[in-house]
């Protein structure tokens, strides 16, 4: 029985529990200790096993998700089979969630009694060892994926980097400068992008999506769909002459990279530094696809390079990898969801990312901050927390908006000399050199108004917009007329994050970001062994944190690969074949096709494919399938133990 300091002992009477345990049938030693998971705590277990010749161990402590492995190891070190062990969750499931000490102690006794009865039925098991395939899949080619891929590749591992868009770079490629240092985003990112393309250990598949994931840690089989770009990647040299030659003389199609602020042609490259430097044809707007009657000037100009292929089909590739890093990024909050800010209604309301593109030298305005009517704004209002810290949209803080708002305030002021008003709830600047940056921007004359903007509406006649907010420092309602409104939109999970996590069989937090195995101790692991997360797909974060996390994810993958083998829980199911009647009930229930009907007209479970859910065990009408660690008898005993009178 573990006190866990006062974590458990504060609510559960550990001494009483220990006395109770000592009296349970079969219990030889009942012991309490401050921290069972500590070295001395584990040593107690080992000692008792040796001294008393124990053959079953129950530890009542925290969640088995934290320390089951620790204690199994300790049991194993004492020469006992590690599976002669069962753990009781007294902390998360009892002490921490109850206040009444007597009730919590009663519950602890019930749980303990159940475990003691259960563990009697445990049988020795060996963990399954499976080899780890050393190749790694990285999903997502933003800065997180790029960095993870490079780290792994530099360590000599073969990496598949799969990106949905025609180019890698992600959101970072759309940024102009980065806070607080104001480095040029492209300057620090593009070398990494080219390094990816150039790296001999990296197979880069852009314009591609993962369709299917099978297998388990160390042995995933992943199906990737390479969408047709109608340009043969190996033949395209990136000269971009085809774009020039396109029958469309003017770019007419809204350009996604510039968020529709600029235009592109049906054949295009997302942005000049795109990697790979390969054009892509958009079949929805290309005349050849629409009518079949284009002059195909692009093909002409491509000439003997012959890179354009209107008949290209999607290509399905299946790869074997041992681990996977998910770095699928975020989605910018759709500002139109907050109608009172007038985004989409008033042309001079912009999102922050749009302003990034306006500020950027390769953006649609060549780096000039111009309103849609071509004017330069002379007053600009920046609205913080759009889609963040708001019970109607997202309750969480998107972590980066304060800082990028400061950055944009600085850039706007620098480029236009405009008067800039920044409407904030709190300024959150906890990173390295962040507070200093805030002070600097404040000193530059940006006006900070502490208040949430309640409304944006047109001023009478002059085309300006009025920002109305209650200034909570002055205690009065302010109405500030501005030429331009910048909405500091928050970060959200990708709209298809749910599909993606199902594909990879991991969890999502309540907000929809991928769920880490433990928020502190396993921040890049997931509950699916061998699958790691990095970057904003796990939650909003800035670039330094993203890169740190991608490094961590890469390191975790490397650790796995270099171990060479991984131990799997032996909780697989098996058919007692001599009593199986061959009814086949189980066969369609297995999602992993692990159960087959063998020649002897019996069901057979391939233990390598079995993941141990136990669904077939519960369904087997003649009780002829058993599951290690979750045997019927064990669970029956547990239930009976929970409910019998103390």
């Amino acid at each position, binding site marked *: 029985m573990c006190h866990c300091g006062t974590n458990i002992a504060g609510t559960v009477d550990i001494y009483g529990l220990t006395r109770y345990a000592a009296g349970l049938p079969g219990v030889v030693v009942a012991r309490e200790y401050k921290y069972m998971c500590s070295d001395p705590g584990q040593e107690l277990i080992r000692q008792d096993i040796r001294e008393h010749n124990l053959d079953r161990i129950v530890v009542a402590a925290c969640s*088995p998700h934290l320390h089951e492995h620790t204690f199994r190891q300790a049991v194993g070190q004492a020469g006992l089979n590690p599976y002669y062990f069962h753990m009781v969750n007294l902390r998360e499931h009892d002490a921490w*969630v109850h206040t009444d000490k007597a009730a919590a102690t009663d519950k602890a006794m019930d749980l303990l009694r159940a475990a003691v009865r259960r563990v009697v039925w445990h049988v020795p098991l060996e963990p399954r060892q499976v080899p780890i395939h050393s190749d790694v899949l990285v999903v997502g080619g933003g800065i997180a994926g790029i960095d993870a891929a490079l780290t792994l590749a530099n360590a000599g591992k073969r990496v598949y980097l799969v990106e949905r868009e025609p180019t890698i770079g992600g959101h970072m490629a759309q940024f102009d400068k980065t806070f607080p240092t104001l480095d040029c985003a492209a300057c620090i990112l593009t070398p990494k992008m080219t390094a990816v393309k150039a790296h001999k250990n990296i197979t880069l598949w852009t314009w591609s999506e993962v369709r299917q994931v099978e297998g388990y840690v160390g042995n995933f089989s992943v199906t990737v769909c390479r969408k047709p770009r109608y340009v043969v990647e190996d033949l395209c040299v990136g000269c971009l002459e085809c774009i020039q030659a396109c029958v469309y003389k003017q770019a007419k199609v809204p350009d996604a990279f510039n968020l529709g602020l600029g235009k592109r042609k049906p054949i295009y490259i997302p942005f000049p530094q795109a990697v790979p430097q390969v054009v892509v044809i958009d079949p929805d707007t290309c005349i050849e696809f629409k009518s079949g009657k284009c002059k195909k000037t692009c093909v002409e100009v491509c000439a003997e390079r012959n890179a354009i292929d209107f008949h290209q089909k999607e290509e399905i590739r299946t790869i074997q990898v041992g681990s996977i890093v998910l770095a699928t990024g975020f989605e910018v909050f759709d500002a139109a969801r907050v109608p009172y800010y007038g985004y989409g209604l008033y042309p001079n309301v912009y999102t922050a990312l749009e302003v990034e593109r306006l500020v950027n030298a390769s953006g649609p305005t060549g780096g000039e901050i111009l309103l849609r009517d071509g004017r330069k704004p002379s007053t600009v209002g920046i609205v913080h927390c759009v889609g963040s810290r708001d019970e109607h949209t997202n309750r969480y803080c998107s972590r980066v908006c304060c800082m990028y708002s400061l950055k944009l305030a600085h850039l706007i002021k620098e480029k236009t000399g405009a008067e800039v008003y920044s409407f904030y709830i709190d300024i959150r600047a906890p990173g390295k050199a962040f507070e200093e940056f805030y002070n600097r921007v404040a000193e530059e004359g940006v006006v900070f108004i502490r208040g949430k903007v309640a409304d944006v509406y047109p001023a009478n006649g002059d085309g300006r917009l009025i920002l109305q907010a209650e200034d909570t420092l002055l205690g009065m309602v302010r109405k500030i007329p501005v030429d331009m409104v910048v909405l500091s939109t928050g970060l959200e999970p990708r709209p298809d994050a749910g599909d993606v996590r199902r594909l990879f069989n991991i969890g999502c937090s309540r907000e929809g970001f991928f769920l880490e195995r433990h928020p502190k101790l396993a921040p890049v692991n997931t509950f699916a062994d061998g699958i790691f997360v990095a970057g904003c797909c796990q939650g909003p974060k800035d670039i330094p944190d993203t890169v740190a996390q991608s490094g961590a994810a890469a390191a975790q993958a490397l650790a796995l690969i270099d171990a060479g083998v991984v131990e799997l829980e032996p909780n697989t199911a098996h058919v007692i074949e001599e009593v199986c009647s061959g009814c086949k009930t189980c066969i369609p229930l297995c999602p992993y096709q692990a159960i087959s009907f063998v020649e002897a007209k019996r069901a057979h479970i391939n233990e390598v494919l079995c993941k141990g859910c136990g*669904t077939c065990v519960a369904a087997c009408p003649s009780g002829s399938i058993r599951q290690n660690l979750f045997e019927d008898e064990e669970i029956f005993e547990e239930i009976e133990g929970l409910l019998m009178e103390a």
Partner: protein
Amino acid sequence: MPDAFEPKIVAFFCNWCTYLAADLAGTSRLKYAPNVRTVRVMCSGRVDPQFVLEAFAQGADGVLIGGCHPGDCHYQEGNYKALRRYELLRRLLNQMGIENERFRLEWISAAEGERVKAVVNDMVEKVRALGPLVIREHEEVA
């Protein structure tokens, strides 16, 4: 009331969602009724209807199964099998005089610690209102 009825509820929680949500509820120090005793299973699909009946037979006043949301099963579709069995078993239990409030299947993801609290508290209240589940034993009757 010295002898106020405290329901006993046995919960079967999926290792990957509801069990973790209960862990999260703990980590978050949420407080809920202490009437639930949890049995950890790898998947709600492992919950054999025999376990549910055994719990009721051994004196549980309610049985709660916690699994992953539809489409979110860690094992792809074990929760659907749990749902199928639940739906039929619930009907059988109705015939045996056991009310729906005493047998629940809830989808609770690993992130929904709050939901563990809400579901447990709600169930405890409802079962408390129903009173103890007494399966009357035989006695001779005229």
